[in-house]
């Protein structure tokens, strides 16, 4: 009875996680008679009575109010279709694309051309998984210069850190502009050398995120490479994007 596997252990689909009615199934788990089983490969998280799994990898599933980085893959009659590293297509309508008035028959590639990248917000995900985007909002814009790297979507919270502590430490140490999209695309712009350090560090965070003491390790890595002392970060009030 009760929980049969340890918290934060890796579970496989079909594995019995708990018996009895003391626990509730959530994302990645389901109830079968009196048992709770996993239906996804991932880490088990016990949140009070609720059992859920965090997937180890996989594509980005769009969620409302997420800030994502997208690439223009198509220009349609109504707006732009963006590739947001997800299995579903997403649309930026003309109305949401720009604050400017877009006249009839305007050349839409003047606003977003094919292969342009932009920071966007998801405003709606329908039951059919059609995604609507907006470019109107604080910090939402077309990206110019810099490079875009791909990371594991499920490691994005680690790269951002608690209240944005990790990414702001990275920004401060390297002097780069960094935008982390929830869909696992990260935009980095800065001096060539510091940009490479930032990209390296992001990949380091990604590969070591499951080990304890991540922030400290990343901090000493940055301090070693740069040869400077990084002061402890005060809690950042604003939510980092």
């Amino acid at each position: 009875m009760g929980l049969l596997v340890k918290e934060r252990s890796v579970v496989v689909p079909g594995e019995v996680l708990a018996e009895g009615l003391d626990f509730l199934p959530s994302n990645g788990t389901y109830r079968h008679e009196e048992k709770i089983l996993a239906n996804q490969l991932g880490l088990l998280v016990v949140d009070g009575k609720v059992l859920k799994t965090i997937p180890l990898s996989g594509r980005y599933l769009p969620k409302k109010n997420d800030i994502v980085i997208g690439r223009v893959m198509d220009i349609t009659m109504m707006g732009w279709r963006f590739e947001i590293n997800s299995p579903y297509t997403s649309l930026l309508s003309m109305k949401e694309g720009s604050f400017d008035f877009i006249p009839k028959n305007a050349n839409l590639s003047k606003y977003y051309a094919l292969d342009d990248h932009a920071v966007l917000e998801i405003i709606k995900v329908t039951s059919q998984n059609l995604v609507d985007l907006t470019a109107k909002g604080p910090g939402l814009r077309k990206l110019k210069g810099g490079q875009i790297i791909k990371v594991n979507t499920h490691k994005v919270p680690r790269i951002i850190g608690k209240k944005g502590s990790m990414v702001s430490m990275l920004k401060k140490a390297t002097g780069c502009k960094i935008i982390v999209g929830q869909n696992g695309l990260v935009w980095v712009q800065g001096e060539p050398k510091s940009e490479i350090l930032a990209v390296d560090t992001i990949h380091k965070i990604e590969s070591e995120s499951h080990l304890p003491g991540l922030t400290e390790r990343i901090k000493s890595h940055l301090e070693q490479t740069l040869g400077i002392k990084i002061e402890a970060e005060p809690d950042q009030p604003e939510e980092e994007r």
Partner: protein
Amino acid sequence: MNEELKEHISECLKSGIRLDGRGLEDLRNIEIEANVIETAEGSCRIKCGMTEVIVGVKLSVGTPFGDTPDDGVLMVGAELLPLSNPDFESGPPSIESIEVARVIDRGIRESKVIDTKALCITKGEKVWMVMVDICPINTDGNLIDIGSLAAIIALKSATFPEMKDNIVDYKKKTKKPLPLKNFPVTATVVKIGSNFIVDPTEAEEKAMDSRLTVSVTADGKICAMQKGGNEPCTIGDIERMIDLATAKSEELRRHIGG
């Protein structure tokens, strides 16, 4: 190709650094594993950064071409699998895959690495045919260099199958290797703006102005070349690219091991 990224790459190159942190003339780390395919006569799996290629060598008996009755036959094929890159499509071979196969073929053929006369069984009737197949598992640029290095290692690891009464028994391998000498090494130099780089990644290949592939034999002779890209090169450019490619081919040659 995103124009912004192209500009960014050439801006970075101006300060002598590439997007992945390498210097302009640095190669990526190469890992090689020979004889990975049981059913092939010779094979090689090679990893260079994110690029990963598997090459298989198959030997069969066939009739020689009419104009070369006592020469064995060499065939090199490359298939750019859609699983290795989202830009690749299935279907008939693309121009890129034909180029990869032909440039690698030319390097092997013109260096005379395989002694084709020794592949003859009966003059005008039966010869050994050497088939080299190149399959990229993951593509992040520089397929020609990596593919040809893998092809040479696969050829080196190949052994003849047993033949009894003119029937080849592929289940039994002999210890007799292919008649090889004077291995060629292929190196590509890419020109972006006024900078010359080696071992380009996929992004750099998309941003390139021109490229020159040079195959160099063990005694330092150039046996094959291929120019690519849309921009023209001056004679000075070509000379510089050949010098750089020759220097890098020596570095790549260490992986062949003699």
